[in-house]
Each structure stands twice: as C-alpha cells, then as structure tokens.
C-alpha cells in the first residue's frame, strides 16, 4: 500500500498503472478506482480556484491508518491513495483511491470505505475562491450525489 501527498497536479491514471505493476498479475482479479477532480461550481456558485490545506505528518498518518484498517477488513492485494494539496485549478485531480483484490466486492467496498473515511477523518481543508475574488472555507463535505 502507498499513500502520497501531491503538491503539484498529478495524473491519477499514471499512478494507477504504476501501482498495478507491483501486484502479481495472476491474482489481481479486480481493481476499483475512484478519481475525484475539482469542479468549477459548488453550492450554486462558480468557483475559480481552490486551496487545499493539510497537517503535514498527521495527514499522512491518518491516511495510512485508514488504509491499514481497510486492509485488515478486506483481502486486498494492493492499495494506492493520493491526495492533492496547495493551489488547485478546475479539472485538476484532487484524490485517487485505487484498490486491488482477487474479487470485485472486496475491491469495490474497500475503495468506497477508504474514500468516505478519508473525507471525514483525514485532516484536509478546502478554501474556495469565487468569481468575484471572495474566498470561503468549505465547512462540510457535500453529500455523495
């Protein structure tokens, strides 16, 4: 498993391809991948930029704990989590969660669990810049739909 904090724009699909190389080809029956990107709108307003703050040290530890707990719960062959920090533009990747298992249910459920726990437990904070230049801190996660 690997957890990484990305300070620049990253290509989630390149990270998936690279992480998959480390997993034995004969066993990896299922992969589940979630990629989250920055939208140019939130709560009915246009958003031109996003600043993502984190707690260096604790953020990595929390992500590692969340992944380790998923690995204890599901039979995973591999897991890769990446999260962007710093100044972000619409379209940039914000988060990648990729899980591999022999079977689809473990891969899919672990991917979903890691993502939801990351959103509620890992110390990241978003500050949005709107079209008129005003900035606001996002106070809660959007529902998942």
């Amino acid at each position: 498993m690997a957890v990484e904090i990305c300070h620049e724009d990253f290509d989630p699909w390149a990270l998936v391809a690279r992480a998959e190389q480390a997993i034995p080809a004969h066993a990896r029956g299922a992969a589940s991948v979630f990629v989250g990107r920055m939208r140019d709108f939130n709560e009915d307003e246009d958003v031109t930029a996003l600043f993502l703050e984190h707690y260096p040290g604790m953020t990595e530890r929390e992500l590692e704990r969340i992944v380790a707990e998923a690995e204890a719960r599901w039979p995973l062959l591999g897991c890769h989590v990446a999260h962007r920090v710093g100044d972000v533009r619409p379209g940039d990747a914000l988060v990648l969660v990729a899980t591999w298992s022999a079977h689809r249910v473990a891969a899919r459920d672990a991917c979903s669990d890691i993502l939801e726990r990351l959103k509620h437990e890992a110390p990241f904070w978003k500050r949005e810049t709107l079209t008129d230049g005003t900035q606001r801190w996002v106070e809660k996660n959007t529902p998942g739909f």
Partner: protein
Amino acid sequence: MTVRVHYFARLREELGRPNEEAELPAGGTTVGGLWQQLHQDAPPERLMAAVNQEQASLDTPVSDGDEVAYFPPVTGG
C-alpha cells in the same frame, strides 16, 4: 511545562497565527482546558483537535512537550 499549539484553515486565519507556545498549569490540563486558557472562551462548536498528531477530544489530557492542534471539521476528498 510547555506545549506547541497549531491552528489550521479558518481557525488559523481568524486567529492570525499558525502556531504558538503555551505554558501548562501545574498538574497539566486537557484539550478543552488549554483552549479555554489560551482564548478565555469555551471551545467553539464542532472544534476538532489532535494531540501528538492523533485525533483527540476535549477531554484528552495534555502533558509537557505535547503537540496540540485545533482545527475546523475536515473537508478533504
């Protein structure tokens, strides 16, 4: 007995500083008690905290040399 206190996100901006040193009372204190001591006010609603980079509650004890962090609800992903 001193601790290093960190603030993040909206709290960091509103308080105008990312961190500070605090002197603990003899006998130590808690996460909630330290906030009260530093800000002469009850902790705000939905305040989150960590001690030594582990999730903590207002009741978590704080000891000499600890790293204490206060932050608003997290919004990653």
